[in-house]
């Protein structure tokens, strides 16, 4: 069984991202599925960031520690991650940093410096790179020093380029050495470098030379892990994409024609990727049928989120398929307009990339704290659809479905996706994103011209602006849209809103709104939502191996809430454990609100790092042993 884990750490702006992507590409070319994740800080240059890569024959479901190989491009990376390498693994580091003390690393977080001082103080030493490596060595890890300075000089000579222009290849040297130790032949690293830099051919050569020299150097020091055999997907083309990118792709495929946004992490990468592809080439069938070569999507950066959502609403009311995307602080600004969208019955999609709050919080980190906010956003009674995706491909398909739901039910749809999905990437096969079996069509009901007609199913005829004289207002209105405060007309509209929710509940099947995995007779039922899905599925396999049977209820839509299934699954279970990355246990709170069932145990993660599968295993076992109500897991640096 292949299960390789590699961590590449270094300063932001130091090529960590491209090193990580090259690693993913090398493994894909070798025939494996990959999962990669970027952990970074709210900073442009200098702060510590890292890339985690996991490689398996089937798609990895979760990240986990410890890793097999740590590539530490600077002293801070050694001192941050030296305990995250398994016995038998390797740490590649710059031998020139051996004497660096933690106290002299300016960007390093103070609390970490304090923890390090305390740790090394207990051993009677000081926190330096070499002391950290000693600790790792005692645990069976092999440190491999790369004399970066000398190697750089040799690369400069070999390529006949100035040293300054070569210094940016440090990341590739570290990576190539690390991949060699992980059992990957240099050939694949070279191919990955070429693939990565194909748009910048000038920098291919120095990077390839740097990789070769680094590998030449390490191979004399150590033979590394056994050479990796070819994976099952060798020769097959895979795509590697982040959740941000997949959602953008789904918007294009799903027929979106207007997207607005105001920059905010971790949502803007989605809008920017869509903007890059806003004028796209049609496929052959569409070319022939429409007589056009290309089609456009208006993607617009607005002055703020108030504008972003109001503009999307305006576009939708005029007939466009419209969406906006944002994160917590921006979503707060959108609140008033969500209420407006509900009242005027605007079909819009709001993609809400959750990050760790409260307030600006830790803006580049993982969190699942906006569920209640999304559900209860908007003043007044504001029924809407709230759907949360569990993984990258769910995020892709849910985007396509949400665009259709918004139209079919003339309602805002809030699509919750978390930061972990935004900036982690997976390998994908072609068929997985090929729209099959899910027709893409306009879903606006057009059976009349009374825009706010009171109907049996709560859905009124759709009349776009510009097609007839009318009025649309956020004030309460009569069927023709004109403002009214009449009590009878008011009741009719309120009841229509209720009936619309019932229709939504009836028409989106329960199987779509909740998914249940695992053995029917399991003693333990896990309840969760969002990106914890795959780590939970992975943990369930491990628990099974240890004789603990589990079942997993993944809630996907919170409005309308899948009461029947959740209620049935939980009431029959012996032990129910919620798994969430927020303080309150927001989904558990909603389970109680909608079903009356109280989830008694919680595994929570709050530190802004994605949850690992082994943390879930640990949490479940701990709860079963001790009966504790809440276990907070704390992995990741």
């Amino acid at each position, binding site marked *: 069984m292949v299960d390789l884990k590699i961590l590449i750490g270094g300063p932001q702006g130091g090529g960590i991202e491209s090193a990580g992507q090259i690693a*993913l590409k090398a493994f*894909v*070319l070798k025939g494996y599925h990959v999962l990669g994740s970027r952990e970074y800080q709210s900073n442009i240059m200098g702060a510590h960031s890292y890339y985690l890569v996991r490689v398996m024959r089937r798609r990895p479901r979760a990240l986990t520690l410890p890793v097999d190989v740590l590539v530490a491009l600077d002293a801070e990376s050694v001192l941050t991650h030296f305990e995250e390498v398994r016995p038998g693994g390797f740490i590649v580091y710059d031998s020139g940093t051996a004497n660096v003390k933690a106290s002299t690393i300016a960007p390093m977080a103070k609390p970490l410096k304090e923890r390090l001082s305390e740790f090394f103080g207990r051993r009677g030493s000081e926190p330096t790179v070499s002391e950290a490596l000693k600790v790792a060595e005692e645990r069976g890890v092999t440190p491999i020093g790369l004399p970066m300075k000398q190697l750089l000089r040799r690369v400069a000579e070999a390529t006949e380029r100035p040293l300054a222009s070569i210094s940016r290849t440090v990341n590739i040297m570290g990576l190539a050495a690390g991949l060699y130790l992980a059992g990957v032949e240099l050939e694949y690293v070279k*191919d990955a470098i*070429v*693939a990565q830099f*194909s748009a910048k*051919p000038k920098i*291919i050569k120095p990077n390839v030379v740097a990789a070769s020299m680094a590998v030449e150097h390490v191979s004399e020091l150590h033979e590394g892990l056994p050479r990796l055999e070819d994976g099952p997907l060798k020769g097959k083309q*895979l*795509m590697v*994409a982040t959740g941000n*990118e997949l959602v953008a*792709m789904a918007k294009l495929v799903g*027929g*979106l*024609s207007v997207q*607005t946004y105001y920059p905010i992490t971790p949502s803007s990468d989605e809008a920017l990727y869509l903007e890059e592809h*806003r004028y*796209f*080439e*049609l496929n052959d*069938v*569409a070319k022939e*049928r*429409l007589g*056009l070569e*290309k*089609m*456009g999507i*208006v993607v617009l950066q607005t002055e703020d989120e108030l*504008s972003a959502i109001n*503009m999307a609403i*305006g*576009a939708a*009311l*005029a*007939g*466009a*398929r*419209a969406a906006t995307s944002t994160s917590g602080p921006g979503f707060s600004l959108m609140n*008033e*307009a969500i209420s*407006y969208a509900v009242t005027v019955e605007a079909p819009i999609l709001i993609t809400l990339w959750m990050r760790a709050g409260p307030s600006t919080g830790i803006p580049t980190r993982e969190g699942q704290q906006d569920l209640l906010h999304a559900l209860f956003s908007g003043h007044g009674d504001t029924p809407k659809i709230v759907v949360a995706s569990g993984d990258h491909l769910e995020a892709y398909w849910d985007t396509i479905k949400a665009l259709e739901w918004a139209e079919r039910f003339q309602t805002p749809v809030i699509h919750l996706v978390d930061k972990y999905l935004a900036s982690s990437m997976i*390998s994908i096969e072609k068929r997985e994103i*090929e*729209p099959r079996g899910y*027709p*893409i069509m306009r879903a606006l009901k057009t059976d009349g011209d009374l825009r706010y007609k009171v109907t049996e199913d709560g859905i009124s005829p759709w009349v776009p*602006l*510009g*097609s*007839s*004289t*009318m*009025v649309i*207002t*956020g004030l309460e209105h009569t069927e023709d849209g*004109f*403002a009214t405060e009449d009590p009878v007309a008011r009741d009719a509209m309120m009841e229509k809103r209720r009936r619309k929710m019932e229709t939504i509940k009836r028409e989106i099947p329960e199987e779509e709104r909740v998914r249940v995995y695992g053995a029917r007779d399991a003693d333990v039922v896990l309840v969760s939502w969002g990106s914890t899905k795959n780590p939970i599925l992975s943990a369930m396999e491990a628990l099974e191996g240890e004789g603990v049977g589990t079942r997993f209820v993944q809630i996907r839509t919170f409005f309308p809430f899948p009461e029947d299934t959740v209620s049935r699954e939980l009431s029959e279970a012996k032990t129910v454990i919620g798994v969430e990355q927020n303080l309150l246990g927001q989904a558990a709170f909603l389970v109680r609100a909608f079903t009356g069932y109280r989830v008694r145990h919680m595994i929570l993660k709050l530190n802004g790092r994605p949850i690992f599968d082994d943390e879930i295993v640990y949490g479940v076992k701990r709860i079963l042993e001790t009966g504790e109500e809440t276990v907070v897991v704390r992995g990741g640096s």
Partner: protein
Amino acid sequence: MARSFLEYKTDAWVQWCPGCGDFGILNAIHRALAELDIDPRNLVVVGGIGCSGRTTFYVKGSNLHALHGRAIPLATGVKLANPRLKVVIAGGDGDLLGIGAGHFVAVGRRNVDITVIVFDNAVYGLTKGQAAPTLPSGVKTKALPGPNIQDAVNPLLLALASGYTFIARGYAYHTAQLKEMIKAAISHRGTALVDVLQPCPTYNNVMTNQWYEERVYYLEEEEWDPVVKTPEEYRRKVPLIAAKMLEWGDRIPLGVFLKDETKEPFEERLERQMPGYMDNPPSSRPISVDGYPLADPWKVFEEKVVKKVEASY
């Protein structure tokens, strides 16, 4: 003339106070639309929240009543989705220059082909007379507990700084002149501002009809040519225009201050970026063929597909 202004009236009860300046502006809008012969189905009046925003209900069109302050982005969304529509914003000074001031600036930067009519009564009418952003400091209107201690914003200068390509100021009771300004603004291709000074007989007991009538005059009475045809002419004329816009006191100029024909409207920028946008705008373009998407993701997003590439380096 193909249509009568009566065709632009609706049967909704007009709920403004007797003598309100809004009546004059509404009248001018009805007449301007009739003279331009605009099909009400192609007209979108986007109203703000306030007494003035009620205009949405009193003009026959395919209309939208926005949130307080958000008429501009809402209207921009409509226009981007369907660039064939005529979009006119009717909002208060509080709405457009207070809570919505950010959008007032942004729309000018884009030069979207939209007309913004500011109902400038210097007070928050609907919330019972608080100071609006255009109320000069030191003035104490009826509902204020003391003289205003915040300075007024100059809507014309703000529009100039923001890139509006048509800037005019009218007076609510001079319906004939106002009608002409509104016609010119709607006909102009780009973002147009018509700032309409208006008495609020209920709450603004300082800036009354008499107060205005004693001060206002028209730019045409002097020599004034607002048209700018080249960037060079723009640089030359802007200081004069700005100086005129600053004039406020015993004499208050009315008329078209600027008509800038040098800047491309936003719709044309989009057409340039994505040829075909005007023919197949977002509101009506196909999204699929027989339920199948228009594009193949594996092809459009090919750069994400990991492939061995042959390269010599």
